[in-house]
């Protein structure tokens, strides 16, 4: 059975009375046990909002509007209070973008671990300082940090170390699902590579299900088994990471891939994506990428495409689906 199955998830931001922004629109997704999935898209496409929705972290003015999120068979979309907290205990965790802001600046790292263990303690659990220290130290060890870090304050750590501490905190209760929300965006390339490698190793060892949210397709393809591409609140493509480069794929994914080049290549052509994403407070007619798409036809502007089979995965594109089906008929 799938670990998480979401159906018809909608998230709406209501910043002012009468203003409604549909940040996530009718998203269905399934996460299998032990899978490492990437979620990619430009700023404002709803990827972080979706990550927050799946872990029930949304705060006003955002709220879930309809939809079912079945975690391990139980619908968590409507859970509140103590039952939700219980699910969080060994259900799911989230690692936030900026390790710097996610840690309490006036408490040492040991306090952060103790806080989690105490808040989620079971009856009769040993919570003496020595035990807590030992558990904190072994968690830090798993993210390649020295136990000595326990006595430090967040400002004494580098960005990469802080992000590792955040990961160790997320691991503390042995969750079955961890959402990593842009865990390396604020870090430089070398540190970024090392942190991603740590996440990948931890995932392989502990076999938790992981969702890696990032705007950087390079980082995601490197680390994950499967990648979902989001645009304007929709998942527009879902492919195995190893197949994404060979195509066929959604024109948006293609445009994203065009933003990369190997710095060692002989000649470099850097693409970009002209235009900007649609205004999500307005109702969307047709495919939301149509205005920026070079393949767009009349049907794209009127009918919103569904996710259909394309290559080794799924994509939501009228033109590519038609091409793919035509080819399949010729060579079954």
């Amino acid at each position, binding site marked *: 059975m799938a670990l998480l199955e979401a159906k018809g998830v909608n998230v709406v931001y209501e910043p002012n009375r009468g203003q409604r922004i549909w940040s996530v629109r009718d998203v269905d997704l399934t996460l299998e046990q032990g899978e490492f999935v990437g979620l990619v898209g*430009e*700023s*404002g496409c709803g990827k972080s909002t979706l990550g927050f929705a799946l872990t029930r972290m949304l705060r006003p003015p955002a709220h879930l509007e309809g939809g079912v999120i079945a975690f391990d068979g139980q619908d968590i979309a409507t859970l509140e209070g103590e039952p939700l907290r219980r699910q969080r205990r060994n259900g799911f965790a989230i690692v936030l973008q900026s390790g710097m802001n996610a840690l309490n600046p006036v408490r040492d790292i040991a306090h952060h671990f103790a806080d989690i263990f105490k808040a989620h303690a079971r009856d009769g659990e040993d919570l003496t300082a020595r035990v807590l220290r030992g558990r904190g130290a072994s968690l830090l060890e798993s993210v390649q940090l020295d136990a000595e870090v326990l006595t430090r304050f967040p400002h004494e750590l*580098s*960005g990469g170390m802080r992000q590792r501490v955040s990961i160790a905190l997320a691991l503390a209760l042995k969750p079955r699902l961890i959402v990593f929300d842009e865990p390396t965006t604020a*870090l*430089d*390339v*070398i*540190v*970024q*590579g090392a942190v*991603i490698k740590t996440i990948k190793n931890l995932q392989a060892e502990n076999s938790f299900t992981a969702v890696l949210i990032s*705007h*950087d*397709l*390079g*980082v995601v*393809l*490197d680390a994950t088994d499967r990648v979902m591409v989001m645009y304007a609140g929709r998942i527009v493509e879902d492919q195995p990471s*190893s197949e*994404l*480069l060979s195509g066929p794929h959604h024109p948006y994914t293609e*445009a*994203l*891939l065009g*933003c*990369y*080049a*190997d*710095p*060692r*290549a002989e000649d*470099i052509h*850097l*693409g*970009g*994506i002209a235009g*900007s994403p649609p205004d999500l407070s307005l109702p969307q007619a047709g495919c939301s990428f149509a205005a920026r798409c070079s393949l767009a036809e009349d049907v794209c502007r009127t009918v919103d495409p569904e996710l259909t089979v394309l290559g080794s995965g799924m994509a939501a594109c009228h033109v590519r689906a038609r091409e793919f089906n035509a080819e399949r008929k010729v060579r079954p």
Partner: protein
Amino acid sequence: MTADLTASQNPFADGARAGGPSTPVPPLVVAGVTKTYATRGRHKSVVTAVDDVSLTVAPGAAIALVGASGSGKSTLAKMITGSVRPTRGSIRFGDTCVESLRAGGLREYHRRVQMVFQDPYGALNPLHTVEYTVSRPCQNFLGLSAAAARDRVYELLETVGLTPPQQFAAKLPHQLSGGQRQRVVIARALACEPDLIVADEPVSMLDVSMRAGILRLLARLREERGLSLLYITHDLLGARVVTDEILVLNQGRVVERGQTKHVLQHPQDEYTIKLLEAVATPYAAKESQPPR
């Protein structure tokens, strides 16, 4: 294009320009610059942020300074823009000795050397419109009247690709995307007709899809305006697109330098190779090693 514009449409600008198009632009020469910081508190020590770095930025040249966090890139940039004084060594821009500049001289120097910052969210005053932000340097450095400054703001916004300019001029920073904000920051840096722009990680906070546009803008400005560019980054792809010479810094020292393309294709230093391997491109991840 710029020279025409200054001469024909902005009569005020010509007088205010010391190093106008007629005077040849001097190279920026950094010679043996070192910066050390003493740390206070329990563990007293001396940190050498930049260690004996020399470089020359010729007029119209674009040089990349590449390295991981803490390699001294930004400290070097601050010394070049005159906001930090070197412990040893000298920085010369024509007759100007940058490390000994005081208020008035520094002001004139800042007209000729402008900076583009890393964080477009923090570099713009959230309470001021784009027009106000970009018109300030026009009025302060070029002495334009308010009306002339407004025309110039529109031209600058058009140059950086924010069209229609009338519409963008009236906006506040929070109404713009990260990429648009960074274009405003670039327009502001261009406003006073500088000879050299120091860009400190101008794209690292932006989405990958917006980076390409900013990189192309910088490359185009350099070509059209003959700007010199010091491009500080850890993004080797950006360095490759915008610059023709590269300096790789590690712990304050230059560990490798040369033509950008050549250095990236044939890296010699271990640290450069490590940086290249850390670049996450989807292609590098899946393909076999490209030709070295």
